[in-house]
């Protein structure tokens, strides 16, 4: 199987009890592409992420990561194959310092699995990588602060930091900028752009500014189906999208606002 696509979903379905939440999603993302997923609340965007990242097992259908099937695998197995995700609600290690949080994210990928025969402080490569990450996400000042004590925006940054720490090739971000102010958002977008260079990125967003600023392609999910998957311009012009999601006035205001 050729790994033409970094991530491929084939007629993916998910039911919760009787309700069908994902109703046959097909999506193929090329390596290095930045894709934004938008859609009304409850359309199934986060669920889609959960299916891809192994938090949930699909009812049917396939998920392929670089051509390899990963549906039904455990989250850590999927992560080891090079897919990493962030969470809509911040999900970090509250009682560890920023540095430790990031280092935890780094360890597996550098092959330090469950070892208890080496000291962390002697793992030069891991420490170097962690320092670099801290710098990337701009938290040098908070290096030794416990994650609980960070401000909201800093926590969001750390969330992204932990997500990219393992060096995964495919990154999924769920509403990375939720709860941030305009200026912070702008700053954050550039950060994301910067840290995901050369990687495949999927992100869920409601902020159209972010979407249009970040994405090469946009997938629109409505009621568990992808109704459009195209370039930003094409999507904005799509009448169905406007009707189902954007709502005329806001789309213009926000889309143009950036």
């Amino acid at each position, binding site marked *: 199987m050729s790994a033409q696509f970094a991530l491929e979903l084939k007629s993916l379905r998910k039911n919760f009890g009787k309700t069908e939440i994902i109703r046959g999603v097909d999506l193929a993302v090329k390596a290095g592409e930045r894709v934004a997923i938008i859609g*009304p*609340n409850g359309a199934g965007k986060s669920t889609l992420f959960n299916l891809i990242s192994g938090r949930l097992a699909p009812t049917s259908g396939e998920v392929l990561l670089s051509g390899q099937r990963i549906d039904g695998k455990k989250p850590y197995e999927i992560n080891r194959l090079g897919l990493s995700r962030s969470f809509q609600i911040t999900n970090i290690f509250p009682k560890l310092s920023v540095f430790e949080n990031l280092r935890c994210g780094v360890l597996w990928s550098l092959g330090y699995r469950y070892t208890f025969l080496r000291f962390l402080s002697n793992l030069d490569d891991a420490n170097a990588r962690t320092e670099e990450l801290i710098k990337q996400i701009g938290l040098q000042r908070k290096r030794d602060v416990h994650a609980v004590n960070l401000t909201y925006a800093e926590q969001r940054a750390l969330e992204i930091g932990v997500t990219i720490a393992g060096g995964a090739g495919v990154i999924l971000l769920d509403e990375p900028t939720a709860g941030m102010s*305009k200026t*912070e958002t702008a700053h954050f977008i550039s950060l994301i752009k910067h840290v995901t260079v050369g990687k495949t990125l999927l992100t869920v967003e409601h902020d159209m500014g972010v979407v249009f600023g970040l994405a090469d392609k946009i997938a629109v999910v409505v009621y568990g189906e992808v109704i459009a998957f195209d370039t930003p311009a094409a999507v904005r012009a799509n009448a169905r999208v406007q009707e189902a999601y954007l709502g005329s006035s806001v789309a213009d205001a926000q889309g143009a606002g950036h």
Partner: protein
Amino acid sequence: MLKLHDIHAYYGKSHVLHGVSFNVGAGEIVALLGRNGSGRSTTAKAIMGLVHAEGTLRWKDQDILRRKAYEIAHLGIGYVPENRDIFPKLTVHQNLLLGQKGTGKGSRWSFDDMYGMFPRLKERQHTEAGVLSGGEQQMLTLCRTLMGDPDLIIIDEPTEGLAPKIVELVGQYLKTLKDKGISVLLIEQKLTIAMQISDRALVMGHGSIVFDGTPDSLRADATTRKEWLEV
């Protein structure tokens, strides 16, 4: 109706609000704007009695400064927190039930009103709230507070994580509330929507109010905007 005068608030030993004063009149929508960390959420918590506060705090001519949160709620102030605080293991319906005070009789709002407002919630009414989508949770918190039949509702960032279309919808509903005589203290990040629907705008900076005026005058006041709202 609500009167804050020289309110100081503390998280443990750290002093966050440095003398906040403003009023909210009956049936008024007041937008409370400001940057991240400027103290808007803390103001809301101070009103609700959830943080240690000092100063003068009056509501309907009663001193509510040292009251317990549940007493304040019973006096008719509703609070929608920023991090949603839904009860994840309870169903949507149970979440709403908890919003009611007493039996819920005599309330302006019924379950049907809520489900009418957001049909999505009706569909999910027997689902555990914890698995709702982010946006659905946001709707739920709003409705949950309304079920308590408040006269003033303090909403902290209600549109976060909502699809643009729903954001518009929320704006409309806030206006409906106002028409029913309910005051709204709206804490917002999204200037556009806040400016559209509010009667008055407050801007907070470093724990005190730095601007108090109509949305139009704020629009005109470029310096305040620049200094306290942007970059």
